[in-house]
């Protein structure tokens, strides 16, 4: 089940890193789009149980996270750096407050249950969640991850992706080569929000339960953390980060009540020793090895 958690966070990381690694915007509020995806699944389960099949749920989650990221993104991309981060954080806390306070609609702090969905007409009545997750859903998740990976890979290496990187590197010059900086940041924000929303929806089936905490800044911080852990300068970094984080968090939580201490400790080590994250360290090591080998060849 851990691997399934990891996969959903990997999709989240891919989406988040389009903003952080490729557009240069650090959002501390991406939990909001995760919550948008997860809550659209849970709300449909509660209010439209007849439509509770995965073919409807995934597009619905994408649409809800799209709408939310259009609204929030419109406000956020007017700013950069710390102002952007704080604004994204505040807006996600706004959603948190709504999910928390509108008890009758959202279930408040108790959250909502996410039953097993039907898939292409197949219902999973009587099937226990672990079986569901390690069976059909496992392959579905792998498929969704592969599609997300390929789409995101396409986006970052496309002319559109190059324009985002130009904005990241030098926004003044980007404007002067004719890129509408604010508009392209907005596009990146929306795409990022939708990927995170998709991750949230897929995660909700794994977890079986959603709470307002998903939109809390602490959860957004975890998204930031796993991206840093893996390394935001490398495309695959956030995927590696999401996997390590999932395992790290579970084992730390299982073995000690001071799991936050473990997370904090690794973060310090990370910032001081591995500024490019785990993926960065691996790639450096690999480059070094390759150089040594070619040098050995010539010697």
């Amino acid at each position, binding site marked *: 089940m851990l691997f399934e958690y990891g996969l959903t966070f990997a999709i989240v990381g891919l989406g988040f890193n389009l903003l952080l690694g490729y557009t240069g915007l650090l959002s501390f509020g991406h939990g909001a789009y995760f919550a948008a995806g997860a809550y659209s699944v849970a709300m449909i389960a509660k209010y439209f149980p007849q439509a509770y099949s995965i073919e409807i749920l995934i597009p619905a989650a994408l649409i809800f996270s799209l709408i939310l990221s259009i609204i929030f993104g419109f406000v956020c991309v007017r700013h950069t750096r710390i102002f952007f981060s704080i604004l994204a954080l505040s807006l996600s806390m706004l959603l948190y407050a709504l999910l928390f306070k509108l008890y009758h609609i959202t279930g408040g702090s108790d959250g909502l249950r996410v039953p097993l969905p039907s898939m292409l007409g197949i219902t999973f009545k009587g099937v226990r969640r672990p079986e569901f997750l390690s069976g059909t859903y496992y392959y579905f998740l792998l498929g969704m991850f592969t599609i997300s990976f390929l789409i995101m890979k396409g986006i970052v*290496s496309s002319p*559109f992706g*190059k324009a985002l*990187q130009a904005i990241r590197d030098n926004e003044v010059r980007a404007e002067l080569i004719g890129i509408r900086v604010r508009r392209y940041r907005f596009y990146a924000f929306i795409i990022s929000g939708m990927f995170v929303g998709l991750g949230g929806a897929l995660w909700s089936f794994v977890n079986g339960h959603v709470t307002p905490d998903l939109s809390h800044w602490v959860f957004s911080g975890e998204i930031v953390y796993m991206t840093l852990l893996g390394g935001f300068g490398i495309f695959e970094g956030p995927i590696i980060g999401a996997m390590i984080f999932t395992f790290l968090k579970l084992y730390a939580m299982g073995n000690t009540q001071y799991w936050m201490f473990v997370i904090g400790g690794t973060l310090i080590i990370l910032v001081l020793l591995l500024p490019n994250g785990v993926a960065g360290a691996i790639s450096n090591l690999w480059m070094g090895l390759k150089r040594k080998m070619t040098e050995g060849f010539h010697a």
Partner: protein
Amino acid sequence: MLKTEKLKKHFGFVKAVDNVDLEIKHGEIVSIIGTNGAGKTTLVNLISGYLRPDGGRILFFDKDITYASPYVRIQMGVGRSFQLIQLFGGISVLDNVRTALFSKYGLIKKGLWPADRYSSVTEEAIEILNNFNIGDKKDLTPKGLSEGDLKILDIAIAFALKSKLLLLDEPTSGVATSDKFKVMDSIISAIKKEGISTLIIEHDMDIVSGYSDRVIVMHEGKIMAEGRPGEVMENKEVKATVFGIVS
């Protein structure tokens, strides 16, 4: 092609650009010289749309662009480079130029196919880099380039936008003296090939007299003298204020 009429920009009590009338013809290379604070960079900022003038007009191909946004001017063909180099530091030299081309051709909306698939754009970018003699460095990031090559790349990006008028703000500042002519040779040969009009801000008189068709001398926001490089340098007033030679 470019004309300014009574162009004015004041910063408080300082008249940075004061009633400047200027004309640049097609394919002409014009240098502006002057002491620090003479208003050279302000003038370039006004023409490129970086600053809004307080008065006067700017005409480009007889169209009034006085208050047009930088974006509109770029579309019309006014490109510029910067005194302090403005590059995209995290992407390759090739991508620096290629992104400008993608933007020029409206391809940055295309989000799914890899940039490498647009092979004609890539070829064009490589050709531009070759014209500027930095083709062999296309896979490096700007961090791996010398100061002179950075300057050249900065101009190559402006060049890639198919500018009809290039504004070059101190293209050789920060470049080692021994490399200055090499840098200018690369730039000027690429510019001449396309017949682009060019306005250069420059301090180095050897460069000014070596490469420009016409020289404009600015002092305290006003044009003090203009003419062929040889004539201007013999002008007594210019000698006194710009070069500090009293004869």
